[in-house]
C-alpha cells in the first residue's frame, strides 16, 4: 500500500480519508515557534466534489489513492450505465450516473472525455471544454438579426438546452463551451 507523508503534501496529491479519495487543493504549513508542526489542507472529495478543511499532525502518513486521469471514448448508454473505451487498449469501462452527472448533457457517442479512474472505476467523467452539437429544435429566428441581442433557447441533439443567437436554425451545428454552458459560434 503506497503512502504519503504530510511533508509530501502539495496541491493535486490524491489520498484516501475515511474510505473516500480526496485531492489536495491547498496545503498550509503551520508551526508555532515553540510547538509542533501541522499541515492544514483544503481537500476535494473526488466522489462528491465537496471541499473540506482538515488538519494533520506533521510527519503522519496517509494512504495514497489509486486515482488515474485518462482519456476515454464514450460508446453508449444502456440506461443504467454509460460505457467508455480506452482507444489504445480497447478496454471498456462502465460509469455510473453519479460519475457522468455533470457531463452527460454535453457528450455524444464517440466523443473523447477526461475520466478520473479510482481503483479502475470511472469516478468523474468530464466533457471536453468545447463540443460541437447539432440543434434539434429552436424557434425560427427573425430576419435581419446578425448576432447576439438576447437570443433564444435551442435544444441540442444531446438534450441540453442553451441560448443561441436568433439567426441560428434547426439542424445547424454549433460550438458550445461546456464549462459555462454557452454558445460560442457556428461550427
Amino acid at each position, binding site marked *: 500500500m503506497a503512502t504519503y507523508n504530510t*511533508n509530501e503534501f*502539495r496541491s493535486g496529491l490524491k489520498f484516501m*480519508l475515511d474510505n473516500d479519495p480526496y485531492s489536495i487543493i491547498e496545503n*498550509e*504549513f*503551520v*508551526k*508555532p*515557534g*515553540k*510547538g*509542533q*508542526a*501541522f499541515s492544514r489542507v483544503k481537500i476535494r472529495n473526488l466522489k462528491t466534489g465537496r471541499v*473540506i*478543511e*482538515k*488538519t*494533520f*499532525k506533521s510527519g*503522519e502518513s496517509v494512504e495514497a489513492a489509486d486515482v488515474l486521469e485518462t482519456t476515454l471514448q464514450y460508446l453508449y448508454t444502456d440506461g443504467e450505465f454509460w460505457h467508455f473505451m480506452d482507444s489504445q487498449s480497447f478496454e471498456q469501462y462502465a460509469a455510473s450516473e453519479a460519475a457522468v452527472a455533470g457531463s452527460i448533457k454535453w457528450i455524444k457517442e464517440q466523443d473523447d472525455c477526461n475520466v478520473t479512474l479510482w481503483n479502475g472505476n470511472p469516478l468523474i467523467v468530464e466533457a471536453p471544454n468545447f463540443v460541437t452539437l447539432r440543434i434539434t429544435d429552436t424557434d425560427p429566428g427573425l430576419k435581419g438579426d446578425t448576432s447576439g441581442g438576447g437570443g433564444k433557447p435551442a435544444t441540442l441533439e444531446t438534450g441540453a438546452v442553451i441560448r443561441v443567437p436568433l439567426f441560428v436554425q434547426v439542424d445547424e451545428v454549433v460550438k458550445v463551451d461546456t464549462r459555462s454552458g454557452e454558445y460560442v459560434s457556428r461550427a
Partner: protein
Amino acid sequence: MSREHNAHRPVASIRVLQQRASLLSEIRGYFAHRGVLEVETPLLSSSANPDAAIEPMQSGYRQPGSHRSQTLYLHTSPEFPMKRLLAAGSGSIFQICHTFRNGECGRLHNPEFTLLEWYRIDFDHFQLMDEVDALLIQLLPGCAAAERYRYADLFVTHTGLDLFSASPAQLRQRAESAGVVIPESAETGWLIEVLFELCVGSWLKQQQGVIVYDYPAAQASLSQLSTQDSRLAERFEYYFQGMELANGFHELADAAEQRQRFEAENSKRRQSGSEILPLDEHFLQALEDGLPDCSGVALGIDRLLMLRCGVDHIEEVLAFPFARNDE
C-alpha cells in the same frame, strides 16, 4: 513570464528592502536609547537545542589536511550564548541575527530567518510585555497596546473546554469536530496545542495585537513555572492579526531543572526516532554560575516587516528566499 526565468532576481522589491534597512536601524536606535547593549554570538555550535519540535541544520568544521570533520549545528536561536553573556555580567543585551530551522518552510516560514532577541535584567515577563508593546507601537504604524489574555481563558472561550479538567476523550472529540485527523499517537498536550491553533487561532486572526500569557506548564519551554500555580509557565506570545510575532519568557535560571527539561526533550527524540542532540554544557555551566533574574523575548523581523509592508507571504520581504527544489 515563468518564475524559473526570473529565479536569479530578488523577490522583495527595492522599496521593501529599504523598509527592512529602516526597520533595523529603528530597532537599534530604540535599544541604544535605553542602554541595551548590542551583541553578536556564534551561529555555529557543537551543541544544539534538543527541543523535540525544532530541528537544527548540521554543518561541520575540518582542520586543513584532516579528513575528519567536527559536527557543528547552526543555531535555532541565539538564546544559550546570550544567557552565557548575561551570567557573565553583560547587563541587558539584544541581538539581531539569522537563525536556522530545518524543515520550516511556508507562508510564514523561511528556514533561514532574521530574529531580534533581547534580555532585560530584573524584568519579569509582565514588564517585558510592556516593552514589547512599546517597541511595536513605535515600529508598526497604527499599532496600539496589545490586549492581554490568559491561555486558559482563551482556551475555554473558543473551545468550550476547561484546559485543566477536560478529559482526553473530550479534547479528542472537540479536535475531531474542528477537522483534525487525529493520529493514534495523539497525546493530551498535542490535542491542546492543535485546538489552540485552530480554535483560538481563527479568533486571533481577526484581532490586532494580542498577548497570550500563563501558558500551560507542558509548554514552558525555557520559562520559569509560576510560583503561584505550578500548572502555569511564565511565558507569553505576541500575536498580531493571528501571526505569531514574539515569544517571551521569564527565564528559567535553575540549572538542574534546565538539564531535566533538555533530557526530557532528548527522550522524546529517542521515542520518535529523531537524532539525540548534544546538550550545551557551557550554557548549563553558566546557569550553575548564576543567571541574573531576567526576562527575554525573540521577535521575528521578517514577519514584522510583512506587517509594515502589508504583504502576506514571507517571500515578499526576503531578497532571496529559500529555493525549494520540489517546486
